[in-house]
């Protein structure tokens, strides 16, 4: 093992506390900027069709990661802010590993008219229910409060 004359005093210091101060400012990127500017003024989304892969990509991007082709700006389309729950989980633990006051229903939602999906929180409180395949609709903040981030979507309401 390590050195020969060892520390044997159990009252000696053992830990050094510190934090990593790291605040980040992320540009949404050219595609993200376009989407979030649209969300600020509309209750809907934009998507990008890749003609080569025959897929409508959502969230929109400048290029398709599958075929690596650029997607021209004139091909962007508008899609509604509705979707179908592909997967859900009921989360009870917060990031600190403690129990939250109330569970949250986290879902991966297939966005209508696209081949893409978005993570979201479902606004419901039935912990035993199966939410898979339910239709949901994004509920946005009021237009004045929107800041151009994903947090402009408050949660998703079940519509069927």
């Amino acid at each position, binding site marked *: *093992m*390590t050195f020969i004359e060892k520390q044997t005093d159990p009252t000696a210091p*053992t*830990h050094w*506390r*510190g*934090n*990593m*101060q790291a*605040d*980040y*400012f*992320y540009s*949404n*990127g050219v595609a*993200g900027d376009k989407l979030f500017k649209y969300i600020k003024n509309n209750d809907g989304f934009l998507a990008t069709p890749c003609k080569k892969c025959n897929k409508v*990509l*959502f*969230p929109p991007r400048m290029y398709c*990661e*599958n075929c690596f082709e650029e997607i021209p700006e004139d091909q962007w389309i508008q899609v509604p802010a509705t979707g179908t729950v*592909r*997967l*859900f*989980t*009921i*989360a*009870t*633990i*917060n*990031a*600190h*590993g*403690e129990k*939250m*006051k109330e569970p*949250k229903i*986290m*879902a*991966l939602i297939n*966005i209508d008219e696209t*081949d*893409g*999906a*978005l*993570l*979201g*929180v479902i606004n419901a409180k039935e*912990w035993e229910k199966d939410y*898979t395949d339910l239709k949901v609709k994004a509920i946005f903040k009021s237009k004045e409060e929107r800041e151009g*981030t*994903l*947090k402009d979507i408050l949660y998703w309401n079940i519509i069927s």
Partner: protein
Amino acid sequence: MTRVCVIGIGHTDFNCMTPDVNWKDIMYEACQKAYADASIDPRKDITSFITCAEDYWEGFSIFDEFVPDQIGAVLRPCCTVCGDGIYGLGTAYMQIQSGLMDVVSIEAHSKVSDLLTYGDVMLHAFDPIYDRPVSGPVERPNYSGLPSYPPENPKPLAGKTDETERVHPYFLAGLEMQHYLRNTNTTEEDCAMIAVKNKKNAFLNPYADYEANITVDHVMKSEYCFKPLKKLDISPNVDGAICFVLANEKITRELGIEPIYLSGFGWCSETPWLSTRGMEAEYAKKSAAMAYKMAGIVNPRKEINIAEIDDRFTYKELQHLEAIGLARKGEAKELLREGALEIKGSIPINSSGGSLGVGNSLEATGLQKSLEIVTQLRGHAGKRQIPDVKVGLAQSWREIPSGSGAVAIFTRG
């Protein structure tokens, strides 16, 4: 081209916390043991050094700088791979096969007990624009250019009330588990059996920290954290360090070491877009295909004698088994129910106890898996030794939220 051999392995014990030693000490201990195992002097005989570490786990913004001293690499070629230790094996493989290096040391470790905010660091790996905000409230930082928390008054751990509403990033595993169970008709009880099996195997492994004698009922009655994922479906974190020494065949023979070959290696990364990722562990499938091809394995189910599969969550072991072709889709649960995955079964999986039994050692996970395979191939596995093992496979995943992983295949000479 030369073949690549494992000539030394070394590791510390794995413990849920290690307040007495720092990260340098555990790295030093593991490396020193590996170099002694290979009977080489690192300051003379090793031509290249590799560490696998990720800055946020460690708490340093350039972890590379803290590496050379304790692995013996001062004023030598040394690099840090930001990723699982298994990628270090791949890097070493390339360096040796190309003839650039003769003897390479690979180290990976976990000192996760130093990290007080594990969930937040993992959440930091999510896409900041499309995924992270969904996890819960975030305060808008102060942009005046001054850090908002001076050192004499650090931010309190539990913070403001809304911060405790930030969901733990493991919710993504809950989503994926649901997908897996639904698509393969696997039950939560099947997943519970994985926890039971691996924690039982860990009893036979002297360095494992989470051995336990539990039943399916125990797991089923543990609370839902991310339904359907339960507390005992999740591998708990652990500290530990592992070091491997690889060399070309000529040096291995000169040292008089019975060669264990690193005969196949593959790696793959899926898109980071959760929206288009299939949640089918495609990364494991592709990396295994690459490794099988390199190792000349045509029928993995017949040719592989033993495997260590990433089991950071119980369902992951089953999902990965199917992805790498050791079971057909939906068939992993059948093998499990038959007992084929037990140490005495036809294809023993995670005889070491896996991450569920040893603990989740973060970036050291890939090397922990490889360590078990090499120990088994050497015949040094003691009470958990599996007879007549010739070919073993280690597979590792870069954990949530990634779709990245790698596979290494070891063969006894």
